[in-house]
């Protein structure tokens, strides 16, 4: 697993190095939430529902931009060819890319949760702790999906547009389940109440991580 660690460490280092664009992504997430605040005009009664909605919209949009960076970085200077030629197992490469995407999305999301709490007047503490599972599963699922799809979209015309066209319909079950689970968490319900939704999220994650690991070698192969 040395190769896995090498790729992950390299990707994390590169993400840290590209400091400016990370800040830009934070800014974008913030602004998306501002739009949602004005669009939803949240009342105290709908707080949990609106906050959950805003969170997941931000997750999807930020994910679309951020989760694919580690894949796109490999297109520079033909580095993906180097990885293909190297002895690393394609599934391990997928895992490393997935982990990098997850890490990046997680950072942006932590900031987003902070903002959500502020904008929607939520309570810090227990509510947020209950929020963690749905967010984590959702982020993991999106990262798994985006890593696989980015390998495809980055090699086609209008790839930036193709990625959401492919990703969003596939991600819908996770959105349905995730928003419901997040809403339950923010409404003060115990985790058990959202168990069905979390179950769907978990199944989604297992499915897509498995598919990604199996199919990755077919999408990175050139020519």
């Amino acid at each position, binding site marked *: 697993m040395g190769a896995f660690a090498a790729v992950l460490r390299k990707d994390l280092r590169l993400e840290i190095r590209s400091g400016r664009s990370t800040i830009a992504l934070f800014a974008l997430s913030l602004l998306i939430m501002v739009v949602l605040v004005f669009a939803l005009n949240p009342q105290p009664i709908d707080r949990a529902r609106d906050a959950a909605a805003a969170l997941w919209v931000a997750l999807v949009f930020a994910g679309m931009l951020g989760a694919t960076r580690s894949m796109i970085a490999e297109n520079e200077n033909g580095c993906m060819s180097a990885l293909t030629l190297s002895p690393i197992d394609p599934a391990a490469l997928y895992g490393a890319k997935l982990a990098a995407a997850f890490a990046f999305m997680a950072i942006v999301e932590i900031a987003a949760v902070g903002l959500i709490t502020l904008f929607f007047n939520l309570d810090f503490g227990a509510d947020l702790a209950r929020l963690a599972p749905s967010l984590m599963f959702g982020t993991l699922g999106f990262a798994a999906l985006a890593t696989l799809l980015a390998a495809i979209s980055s090699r086609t*015309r209008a790839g930036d547009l193709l990625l959401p066209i*492919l990703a969003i319909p596939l991600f*819908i*079950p996770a959105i349905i389940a995730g928003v*419901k689970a997040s809403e339950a968490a923010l409404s003060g319900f115990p985790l058990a109440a959202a168990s069905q939704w979390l179950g*769907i999220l978990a199944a989604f994650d297992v499915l897509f991580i498995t598919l990604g690991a199996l*199919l990755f070698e077919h999408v990175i192969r050139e020519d």
Partner: protein
Amino acid sequence: MKNKIGTALGLMTLGLMLVSLFMVFEWVPTEADQGIVQRIFYFHVPCAWVAFAAFGIVAIAGVFYLWLKDQIWDDLGYAAAEIGMVFCTLVLVTGSLWAKPIWGTWWTWDSRLTTTFILWLLYGGYLMLRAMADDTEEVARFGAVIGIVAALDVPVVILSVRLWRTIHPAVLITRSGEHGLEDPRMVITLLVALAAFTALFGWLLMLRFQQLRTRTRLTILRREVALIEAAVGDY
């Protein structure tokens, strides 16, 4: 030989369709609650069956393509996707036409229609991918992967949408057409319609598939010609 299969399917389709049309418009009794409009059900449901089945074919063709790397599987998958998309659109349109007179709105987010809509989006994504990638081998590979991924996503979609709708049922109750088909003539009509639409799908698929096969063969031939021309240049 292929033309014989095509012709046979075509004739079978014609026959079944005629019978089906007769049954739907003349023979089957009108449903009590919904009236004449309910007859659209006999087209709506078979279209849905075809749309989902076609998607399964796209995915299975994808698996075989990645495994055997033979272009014939990609041709089959692409043909199935194009035709499946048409039938999927028909499901949504017929569903809409059905909803308006019964419930007064053009669209409802009940679980079946929602699932079909998501399927439609998945088809759309697949077709858009095919349109945007240039290289044949690459696009075939990508298409296969997307087809497989999307097909396996569908069960999760069905599950999540169903759960979503049981917790918050659509404002409008689900159509009664499917359960409680009281009259056996309704069941028979439905089955005949299913057969007719399956035959139609098979026939269209065969036509389109053969078209794509011809295109593939043409490419292979042109490649051979180019190789021969280059060989001539050796002398």
